[in-house]
């Protein structure tokens, strides 16, 4: 294991919260009681919740130890395809924690919230400028929420045309959330097969597109890491039948400053601020999934919207055709302002360079690993590349084994078994923030694992051995679920 930066160190055990502490301990300072007690009637008063009592030290040790069982972007390379695990700048955290942002109540009268409203207004404008779209709403709280917003807009558009439509085209390379978001709007998903090059074929779309079909949900660059080169023809076919083109912008990190989404024929696009715009993933959230649209669809955007009137900013709900409200307030503002901070730190030239380097890094890994691993689509890739376990399968080694073994080498595994159209997919997205020596280290580890697969496959079946735990029994977890103590 010469290629390994993975080593073993002292990791401490830590019980569950309620397995420690003692009744009467306190981990938080309570304010002085400066008012008298007021009795609560028996009909209202409930039992004290059954929480453990812990001291501040108990709590701090607990979470510090837990954190040491985790792997984050700050720990090491995290080449998770389609997730854009780039570095999360620390200045963004400083900005989001400023009292005027973190302490702002969402229902403050507008004159008392001008700073934050201006920031949201500008961020919408910047996202439009970066994507080439005309208008945006920051309200969706995550990528899938942005998809839902997009589908609601699509639904509202057709309703206003007085032509209800029942179906939507979804390529077989799409994220699983796409069909789920569409079905929330009552659309039936019609799968579209990608062609032999891993891209949408206009003829296939033309054969399926009709006047009962609301539109198409594409991802571009797609989940194979390929640019949909026929996108304009596809969009023209969809538009000719009165449909809309929705683009999942999860992979925007490949094309900032390079592609104009509106020129592709895209009507609706969602972004993931927690991917392209560097905000941390937080172990699963909070994210932020703004939705961007063309001028023609602007009237359907969620409310409230930030509006500028005579130099002052207000939140307005006065948009009669809106799809409505999607979030209790304005979405994940604490995340949005980290993205704003990122855009201002980067500027136009660095954002474009980030996309260029992201694509360079992926092509570099593709070039270095071709041969060691099977490459199902040998085409120029964008910001990610997809391999399979076809070569290793001969030694009864699967994608899962390769992924688990990578942990021992000190790398977070790539996305595995996705996209579904590729059997045993290994999807690598290095992002622009990984320097060359880390890419070389990853390549070396992957090559070493390929050698182990040939020479000592059992090593891979037993992997991982370095982390705190070995492989976990997911089958019995699902068969008899235990979701709480």
């Amino acid at each position: 294991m010469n290629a390994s930066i993975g080593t073993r160190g002292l990791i401490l055990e830590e019980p569950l919260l309620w397995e420690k502490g003692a009744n009467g301990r306190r981990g938080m300072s309570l304010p002085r009681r400066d008012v008298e007690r007021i009795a609560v009637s028996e009909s209202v008063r409930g039992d004290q919740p059954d929480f453990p009592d812990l001291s501040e030290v108990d709590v701090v040790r607990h979470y510090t130890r837990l954190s040491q069982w985790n792997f984050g972007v700050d720990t090491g390379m995290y080449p998770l395809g389609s997730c854009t695990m780039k570095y999360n700048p620390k200045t963004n955290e400083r900005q989001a924690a400023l009292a005027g942002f973190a302490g702002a109540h969402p229902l403050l009268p507008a004159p008392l919230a001008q700073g934050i409203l201006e920031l949201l207004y500008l961020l919408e404008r910047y996202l439009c400028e970066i994507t080439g779209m005309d208008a945006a709403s920051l309200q969706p709280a995550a990528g899938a929420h942005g998809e839902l917003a997009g589908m609601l807009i699509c639904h509202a558009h057709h309703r206003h045309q007085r032509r209800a439509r029942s179906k939507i085209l979804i390529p077989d390379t799409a994220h699983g959330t796409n069909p789920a978001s569409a079905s929330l709007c009552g659309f039936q998903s019609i799968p579209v097969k990608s062609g032999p090059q891993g891209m949408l074929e206009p003829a296939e779309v033309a054969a399926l597109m009709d006047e009962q079909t609301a539109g198409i949900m594409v991802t571009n660059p797609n989940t194979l890491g390929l640019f949909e080169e026929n996108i304009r023809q596809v969009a023209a076919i969809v538009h000719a039948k009165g449909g809309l083109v929705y683009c999942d912008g999860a992979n925007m990190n490949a094309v900032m400053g390079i592609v104009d989404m509106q020129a592709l024929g895209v009507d609706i696009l969602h972004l993931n601020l927690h991917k392209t715009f560097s905000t941390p993933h937080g172990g699963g959230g909070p994210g932020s999934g703004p939705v961007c649209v063309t001028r023609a669809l602007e009237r359907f955007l969620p409310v409230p919207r930030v509006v500028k009137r005579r130099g002052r900013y207000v939140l307005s709900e006065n948009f009669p055709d809106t799809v409505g409200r999607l979030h209790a307030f304005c979405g994940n503002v604490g995340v949005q302002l980290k993205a704003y901070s990122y855009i201002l730190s980067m500027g136009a030239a660095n954002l474009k360079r980030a996309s260029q380097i992201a694509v360079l890094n992926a092509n570099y890994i593709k070039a270095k690993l071709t041969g060691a691993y099977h490459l199902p689509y040998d085409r120029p890739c964008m910001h990610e590349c997809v391999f399979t376990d076809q070569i290793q399968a001969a030694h009864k080694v699967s994608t899962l084994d390769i992924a688990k073994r990578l942990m021992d080498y000190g790398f977070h595994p790539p996305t595995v078994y996705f996209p579904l159209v590729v059997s045993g997919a290994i999807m690598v997205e290095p992002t622009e923030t990984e320097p060359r020596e880390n890419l070389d280290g990853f390549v070396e580890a992957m090559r070493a694992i390929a050698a182990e697969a040939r020479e000592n496959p059992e090593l891979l079946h037993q992997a991982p051995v370095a982390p705190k735990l070995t492989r976990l029994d997911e089958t019995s977890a699902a068969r008899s679920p235990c979701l709480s103590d």
Partner: protein
Amino acid sequence: MRYLPHTDNEIAAMLSAVGARDLEALFSHLPADCCRSRPMELPEAMTEWELDRHMDTLSGRTATSPRYRVFLGAGSYHHHIPASIAYLLGRSEFSTAYTPYQPEISQGTLQAIYEYQTLVTRLLGMDVANASMYDGASALAEALLMAIRITRRTTVAVSKAIHPHYRDVVRTYLRPTGYSVVELDYGPDGRTDLGGTAGIPEPAAIAIQSPNFFGCVEDLQAAARTAHADGKALLVACFTEPLAFGLVKNPGSQGADIACGEGQSFGIPRSFGGPGLGMFAAKKDFMRSMPGRLVGKTTDRKGRRGFVLTLSTREQHIRREKATSNICSNQGLCATTAAMYMASLGGTGLRELAELNHDKCGYLKAGLAAAGFRLPFGAPTFNEFVVTFPADPDRVYRRLLRRRIVAGLPLAAWYPELAGSYLLCVTETMTRQDLDDLVKEVSA
């Protein structure tokens, strides 16, 4: 740029490794008519120090405590956040990790979420809780969709005393589906008039918020009886202030089938309304109909305790269009925050803090009543209540604003019949002096 590590030499070497002449050449296969015709127009890149200054300026143009005394609640609450929590959240092993798909190197996130799920079930008196949703409003919408799936019915009854924004979100989610939403009026004491359910044929769910938008503690037990008398309908109990369950009866003990709401109060800053935390819990029978991520307990190959994401067969990446929801994430870090907060308070601390909120709020209520102001609703409250200012309430409100007091939320925009009434919130962050000052200023 400090986030872009590549030197020109490295780029040149890598370009030659991939066989490209320059960086532009990496994109030469893109059709020309897909590409931008002009560079992006964005402000010039700022240094870290320029950015600090810019953000300090914007931040300074927002009214926050201690400069202002803000008596606003209505779904977003000001509670003290211990320094220990902010510090622990700075552990980037938590914040810079992805969804824990690789459990062997994500046990920190997974155990933290398992603990969160457990604490939520205990707080709400429910059997199972998920790993969280986007916020309280979307959690309510998902709860009603879940009730529709379970009962195979198409109408939901929603109390008018539920946060107006939550009801808006429910309408947004349900509009394209053809399901209908019927609103239940509130009675003279500020609580939902359950008599309104009589005329609704076959409701899938009755949704009640407690404490409700007016701060009133609802009779959830009566609501459960009403829902269950029908044999099929579910009681969906929602909330915006989970701290209340440190003192008042929790939804589970009152017969709720699904309990959901906003968890922002538990250690999460207001941040202009987000990120928050959608808490979501249900009775055991409904576990497989629940939306959202779930963490379950299991063992590794050596028999040691560990945790994994589980029951993913309900979810979109496997079930695709038949999934229980399109949600493929949670508010992981916010759920972790809430767990840290609940752990820091403990059972006795939560009780004490809830009592303090209740009593301070009661002190202000009594003060305003003694000063002659009308409190239109008689039902018991927790840390919010409605007060009616006398003639020309707008003028009073504006005068207080000039004195840097935000005297609650005017209700007329949502409830025209409550013109002149304001929703006031008092948490532990207000001192007796703050409360006395408010009474004095409004009476002036």
